[in-house]
């Protein structure tokens, strides 16, 4: 019972240090721990009860044994006394003692020793002389009759390591004439003989005092000790039972001091009963409690594991499901029962479904365009990446078609965003229908893109592009609006046109750009030269930005000769760019770039200011003509810019002529016309440039009363050689005159042309015949020169 008690003391110390990572072990340990505590309490109580019971039982046994021992001791004494008395009363013996017949006495003693089984028998005379014993024992025997108190017949003495019981019997003749004394050594055999007579297996020892007064057993079975001293001392007055801790184990013990000749004990009888023996009858009970405890502990552990399992299993399943959910996998937990865990599982399933739904929705939103429900740019990029990677392994080509709608902004502006949105949706549907083998995405605005990757044949990209173009030949019906749209397409095929998604997309874009440059409404395949052009263009863009800041721009002025007044009536301001490394860059190269980047706004503003400022140095009849890009015109504050330039320079508005091309009307007529009227209201003149090329729609002439039409150089070139051209010019001039507009013929190079044009009634001419474009200083000189010449004429 000691072992579990130690375990119990150790367990609670260890438990808090343990860390259980699963609920099952935690619960099992808790229940097992509680049980162990309970069991230990029961075991401790049982042990206490058993100890108490054993103690009581053994006490009773031992006390009764002590009483029996006393009786045995007394019986032995009586037996010895009886033997001694028999001798002492023997008439012949008394006669021998009375007459001091030593020989007779000795022979009588010898025969008695054999008869009474007494080892030592002696006779002490009244004079203290001893017959039958000698030495130290003889001396102690001689002293005995004189030391014993009245009525006592025996005493226990110690002699060295030996202990003797002495019994005397007086020899009466009839008064005391001596004493018969028997001496019995209390040795192991004597003690065993006593032990055998006891009801319980007692161990009887004779203890005596050592030199320092401590009690011990001379045979070495009991070492001196305070416990024994105490026991013997307390046993003098009454019977005491105590527990001794001996090397051989614990023992219940009681002592019986043995009276010495003068009363004080020289020896004591120690009866002990080993505790182990005393507790032996309770062993089966203890074992039974322990075994039952172990068995129940096992059952508790198994039971709590099972119980914990039934709780923990669904929780573990929930935990795994939650983990799976965290990793993005849709999981369901089997709902078991209607208890809290079952309800939790159901809640979890609902939550899981909700999360997955929302996740799908978010993912869809993240990767789809909300307007057309087509994949968006991000999705497109990812798909393209993936396709390109797969292509790198399989070697199959990947085709990218980029397309946008021509003039979509105009549609949005004129018909409203709802219609624009509907159009985009319609186009998306159209593209999906045309390219079931491809991934159609809306990249943003009016930009769409298609990926072809599923093993298409070489002609498929071209065929698809053509099919798209064919599909939009007719106006598209959007909410009962029939909208004509144009589509431009750029195509790039990997891996030839690009090894990664970025490159493919960029090259398809370049091809698209080219398609637009080439006139819209068509498709272009990517070519490496496009890439080179794009590089050049990018450099140009960068250079352009610094050009305006560092004053690389200048204006050249080409005179326009007034045929009626026979003098220079106007200069057309022409932009010149002196590139620090490339030298003079022709406007045809950089104007489109400036327009595409929006820098044309700032450049145009600068031109306007510079031209007005320069015109102030000329005579008042000389006007300045400034070309304005459609992009500038789209800016509604353009009128303010013009007024600012006029105000800053102080130039009269009538001296400023704004030249526009019919392309300003492409994005819609209304706003442009309104702006033109604003300018006209200021007093600024408006000229229509490049008349005769492009559509040259006469409807424009009706929508705004231009001040001048500028007849394109291509007509002037052949005016002398081609009668047809001459007739056209003649018609234009007549038309202008009818509409009260002036006309300027551009690119006049010889006098023949001049004569022809003059003859046809052209108001003014412009060209190398008069002068190449010149600098501002030369322009001033030129005015004066011509004035002088006309004055001369």
């Amino acid at each position, binding site marked *: 019972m000691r072992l579990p008690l130690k375990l119990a003391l150790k367990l609670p110390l260890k438990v808090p240090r343990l860390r259980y990572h699963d609920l099952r072990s935690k619960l099992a340990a808790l229940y097992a721990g509680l049980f162990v505590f309970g069991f230990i309490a029961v075991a401790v109580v049982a042990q206490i009860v058993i100890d108490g019971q054993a103690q009581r039982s053994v006490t009773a046994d031992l006390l009764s044994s002590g009483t029996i021992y006393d009786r045995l001791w007394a019986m032995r004494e009586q037996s010895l006394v009886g033997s001694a008395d028999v001798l002492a009363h023997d008439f012949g013996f*008394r006669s021998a003692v009375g007459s001091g017949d030593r020989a007779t006495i000795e022979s009588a003693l010898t025969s008695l020793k054999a008869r009474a089984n007494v080892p030592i028998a002696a006779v002490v005379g009244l004079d203290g002389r001893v017959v039958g014993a000698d030495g130290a024992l003889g001396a102690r025997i001689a002293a005995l009759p004189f030391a014993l108190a009245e009525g006592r017949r025996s005493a226990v003495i110690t002699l060295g390591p030996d202990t003797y019981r002495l019994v005397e019997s007086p020899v009466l003749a009839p008064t005391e004439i001596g004493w018969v004394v028997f001496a019995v050594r209390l040795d192991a055999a004597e003690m065993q003989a006593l032990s055998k007579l006891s009801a319980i297996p007692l161990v009887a020892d004779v203890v005596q005092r050592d030199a320092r007064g401590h009690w011990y057993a001379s045979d070495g079975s009991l070492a001196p000790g305070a416990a024994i001293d105490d026991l013997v001392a307390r046993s003098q007055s009454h019977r005491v039972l105590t527990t001794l801790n001996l090397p051989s184990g614990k023992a219940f013990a009681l002592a019986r001091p043995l009276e010495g000749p003068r009363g004080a004990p020289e020896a004591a009888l120690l009866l002990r009963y080993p505790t182990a023996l005393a507790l032996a009858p309770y062993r089966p009970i203890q074992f039974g409690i322990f075994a039952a405890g172990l068995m129940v502990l096992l059952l508790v552990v198994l039971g709590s594991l099972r119980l914990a399992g039934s709780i923990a299993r669904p929780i573990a399943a929930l935990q795994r499901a939650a983990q799976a959910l965290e990793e993005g996998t849709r999981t369901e937990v089997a709902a078991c029962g209607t208890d809290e865990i079952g309800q939790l599982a159901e809640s979890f399933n609902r939550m899981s479904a909700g999360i997955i739904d929302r996740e799908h929705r978010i993912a869809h939103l993240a990767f789809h365009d909300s307007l057309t429900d087509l994949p968006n740019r991000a999705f497109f990029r990812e798909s393209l990446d993936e396709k390109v990677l797969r292509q790198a392994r399989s070697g199959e080509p990947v085709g990218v078609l980029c397309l946008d709608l021509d003039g979509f902004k105009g549609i949005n502006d004129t018909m409203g965003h709802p219609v624009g949105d509907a159009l985009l949706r319609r186009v998306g549907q159209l593209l999906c229908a045309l390219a079931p083998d491809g991934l159609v995405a809306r990249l943003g605005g009016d930009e769409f893109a298609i990926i072809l990757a599923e093993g298409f044949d070489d002609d498929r990209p071209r065929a698809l592009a053509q099919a798209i173009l064919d599909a939009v030949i007719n106006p598209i019906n959007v909410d009962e609006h029939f909208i004509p749209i144009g589509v431009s397409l750029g195509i790039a095929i990997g891996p030839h046109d690009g090894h990664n998604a970025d490159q493919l997309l960029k090259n398809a874009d370049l091809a698209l750009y080219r398609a637009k440059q080439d006139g819209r409404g068509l498709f272009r395949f990517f070519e490496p030269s496009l890439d080179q052009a794009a590089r050049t263009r990018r450099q140009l863009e960068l250079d352009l930005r610094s050009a305006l800041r560092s004053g690389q721009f200048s204006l050249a002025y080409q005179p326009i000769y007034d045929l009626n007044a026979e003098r220079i009536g106007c200069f057309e301001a022409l932009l010149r760019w002196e590139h620090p490394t490339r030298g003079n860059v022709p406007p045809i190269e950089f104007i489109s770039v400036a327009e595409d980047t929006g820098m044309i706004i700032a450049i145009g503003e600068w031109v306007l200011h510079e031209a007005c400022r320069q015109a102030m140095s000329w005579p008042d009849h000389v006007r300045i003509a400034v070309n304005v890009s459609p992009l500038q015109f789209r800016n509604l504050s353009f009128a303010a810019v013009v007024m600012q330039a006029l105000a800053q320079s102080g130039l009269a508005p009538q001296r400023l002529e704004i030249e526009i091309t019919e392309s300003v009307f492409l994005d819609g007529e209304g706003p442009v016309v309104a702006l033109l009227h604003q300018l006209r209201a200021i007093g600024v003149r408006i000229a229509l440039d490049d008349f005769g090329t492009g559509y040259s729609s006469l409807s424009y002439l009706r929508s705004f009363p231009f001040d001048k039409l500028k007849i394109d150089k291509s007509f002037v070139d052949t005016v002398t050689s081609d009668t047809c051209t001459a007739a056209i010019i003649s018609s234009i001039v007549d038309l202008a005159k009818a509409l009260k507009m002036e006309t300027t013929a551009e690119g006049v190079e010889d006098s023949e042309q001049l004569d022809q044009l003059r003859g046809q009634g052209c108001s003014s001419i412009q060209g190398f015949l008069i002068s190449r474009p010149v600098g501002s200083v030369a322009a001033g000189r030129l005015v004066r020169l011509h004035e002088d010449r006309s004055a001369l004429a």
Partner: protein
Amino acid sequence: MRIPHIAALALAAAAWPTICAAAPVSIQVSGADGRPLAGAVVTLAVPGAPPAEPHGSYVMAQHDIAFEPRILIVPVGASVSFPNRDQVRHHVYSFSPAKKFELKLYGFDVTKSVVFDKAGVAALGCNIHDTMTGFVYVTASAYAAISDASGRVSFSGVPAGRATLTLWHPSIRAPGNTMSQTAAIPTAGLATSMAAGR
């Protein structure tokens, strides 16, 4: 028998005039426990005093399974008769050095005599009846007496001078169960006490 006795005393007085004056001596005897001791024999040995002579008959009867008297003081040389006055048999013996004898008195009123020719105490017992104890106190002194119930012993006419007092009692654990002391007996007499120490 009485006359020579008196004459002897007169002779003695005439021979030692200094001790002629006779004085009374009384002795109080107490036991070891300090209480008066009855049945103790006190003898006074006076140097030069004539020894006691046997006269008359001395009887130590056995009656009612006891010796009667318990203590019998006799002079040296006295013959003591041992009549059996019981209906039972007695076997009287003495192992004492003063006188060893054995009398098998197997009949009613059987009388046997023993002569005690040596001073000393003969302890008498009966081999049949252990309880029977008797003593024959054989002394040469004329001054010997048994203490009465109050432990007193008195002598008269003791010559003054130095004397040896001897106390005998069976309970005295000393050789011969006796204790002795010397005392100066003044002419005016002496009253002293003796304690029977063990």
